[in-house]
């Protein structure tokens, strides 16, 4: 156990500066600094604001992670870093810090894929992944359905969002309803008092014609527009907007389409294990619906605890540890960031 390498992971693809320390599949530290409050008045993540915050948070977060784990940076055996996908300017801060560490410590550097990190992090909670699993990853930045045959080397993208990420749709609908940013938690809170069957909002890409080409893809922009029109029609008629019912019905539509397609993929591929990750899994209804459908489908569900589902350095360290264990070659110091790195590329 202690002979496994100590891997440090750095995450800076969006608005969280994360540094994690992992040995094998054991989590030793998970330090995160978030700039989410600085973005609230803009209603979404402002790349330049995020990049500035990463620069200020990077060294303090590194030091906090080491303190948490009771190790020195000199004890680290390998450095993993998110090299994509994400905001280019934000990614660059983390990658530059990771290179500075690798160079100064004389340790190997591994650029890894953020989205795949959301799957790898589950190994810290539930142990090694089964030989094959599906992964449904839902956050403010991504919505992906993946087939994972080997976390370090073999990930296939079955589908993704054609427009907004699910978390973005929550933010936009929250704005429509005058609920605070970020939209996920605020809609979740209000929806608890509402009727999810009150309004039948559209489920994107579920018509027979769409399923032929986009069986595992998602689209949330039509849903967002439908909610906006519905709210405006109420207002135009001079009637009060039943915010709780709108929130609950919207949330129901998002969770329904996400889980429906994920379990459809499980059935079609005969896969019996599924990881559901990403920040939107903090959503109570998504977890509940996934659990019910998993039970019905005979699928074992693995959902990391909420803290590990949001962006953090531990997920990058976890993936880094898997990549190191697989004996892969390190990245060069000339590693570039790739803001649109596809999930099928585990290494950046």
């Amino acid at each position: 156990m202690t002979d496994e390498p100590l891997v440090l992971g750095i995450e800076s693809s969006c608005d969280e500066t994360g540094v994690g320390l992992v040995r094998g599949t054991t989590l030793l530290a998970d330090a995160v600094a978030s700039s989410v409050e600085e973005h609230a008045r803009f209603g979404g993540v402002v790349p330049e604001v995020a990049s500035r915050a990463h620069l200020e948070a990077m060294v303090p977060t590194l030091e906090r992670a080491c303190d948490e784990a009771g190790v020195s940076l000199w004890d680290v055996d390998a450095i993993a870093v998110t090299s994509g996908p994400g905001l280019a300017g934000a990614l660059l801060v983390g990658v530059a810090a990771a290179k500075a560490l690798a160079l100064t410590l004389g340790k190997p550097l591994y650029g890894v894929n953020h989205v795949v990190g959301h799957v790898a992090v589950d190994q810290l909670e539930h142990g090694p992944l089964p030989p094959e699993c599906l992964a449904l990853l839902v956050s403010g930045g991504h919505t992906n359905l993946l087939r994972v045959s080997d976390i370090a080397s073999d990930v296939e993208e079955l589908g993704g969002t054609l427009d907004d990420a699910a978390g973005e749709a929550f933010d936009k609908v929250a704005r429509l309803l005058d609920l605070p940013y970020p939209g996920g938690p605020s809609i979740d809170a209000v929806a608890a008092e509402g009727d999810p069957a009150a309004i039948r909002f559209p489920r994107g890409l579920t018509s027979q014609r769409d399923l032929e080409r986009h069986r595992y893809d998602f689209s949330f922009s039509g849903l967002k527009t439908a909610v906006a029109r519905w709210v405006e029609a109420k207002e135009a008629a001079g009637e009060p907007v039943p915010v709780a019912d709108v929130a609950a019905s919207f949330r129901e539509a998002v969770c329904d389409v996400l889980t429906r397609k994920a379990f459809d993929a499980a059935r079609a591929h005969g896969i019996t294990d599924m990881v559901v990750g990403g920040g939107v899994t903090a959503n109570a209804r998504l977890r509940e619906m996934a659990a019910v459908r998993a039970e019905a489908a005979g699928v074992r569900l693995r959902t990391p605890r909420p803290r590990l589902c949001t962006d953090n350095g531990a997920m990058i360290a976890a993936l880094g540890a898997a990549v190191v264990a697989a004996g892969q070659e390190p990245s060069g110091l000339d590693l570039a960031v790739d803001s649109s790195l596809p999930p099928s590329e585990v290494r950046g």
Partner: protein
Amino acid sequence: MLLALDTATPDVTVALRDDDRVVATAGGDHPMRHGEQLAPAIAEVLAAVDATPRDVTAIAVGTGPGPFTGLRVGIVTARTMAAVLGIPTYGVCSLDVLAAQAADAGAVEGRFLVASDARRTEVYWAAYDVAGPGADVVRLDGPHVGPAADLPAELRALPVVGEGGRLYPVAFGDVRGPERPSAAALAEVVAAERVALSDPEPRYLRRPDAVELSARKRVS
């Protein structure tokens, strides 16, 4: 040894200085690729003199002003290395370095301006007074950011050093070299204590572009 680096222009520039002189320099060949080129350039200067990172006893970093993304790459690299090694990091205004370079090259003497490219048809600029080659660099005004034509006429009449002068020849009459700061000059001015040292904080001079929330837009 002192490691010096600057990423406040499209260039990456790195130098290593021992107690007496600059012993190695390196840079990138591709503009605006700081993230890819900086760490290899640092490795290159160390390797050139068979040094290891542990031989570095201080770091000097250009704090801009300059394009933000590159600037951050340099500063986070300096801060991270310094944190690991437990050594000091000195921030230096990148325009001050260029001012010293120009004075040492004999391009200017007395009062002059330094102007660099701030894009969006603006320049980063500061006004200086240097007695001559090797003398202390005295910044009289700045750094500021704005359109070249908006500078007071008496300042625009001074000799102008830096890329900003070349980009806006109508606003600036008397344009002189050099165009961009070098890490070798940065290492020398820090070693000779000829410039003001600061914390390694970026000089952004501009607020982030972002629009605060207003009333929501209708879709129909």
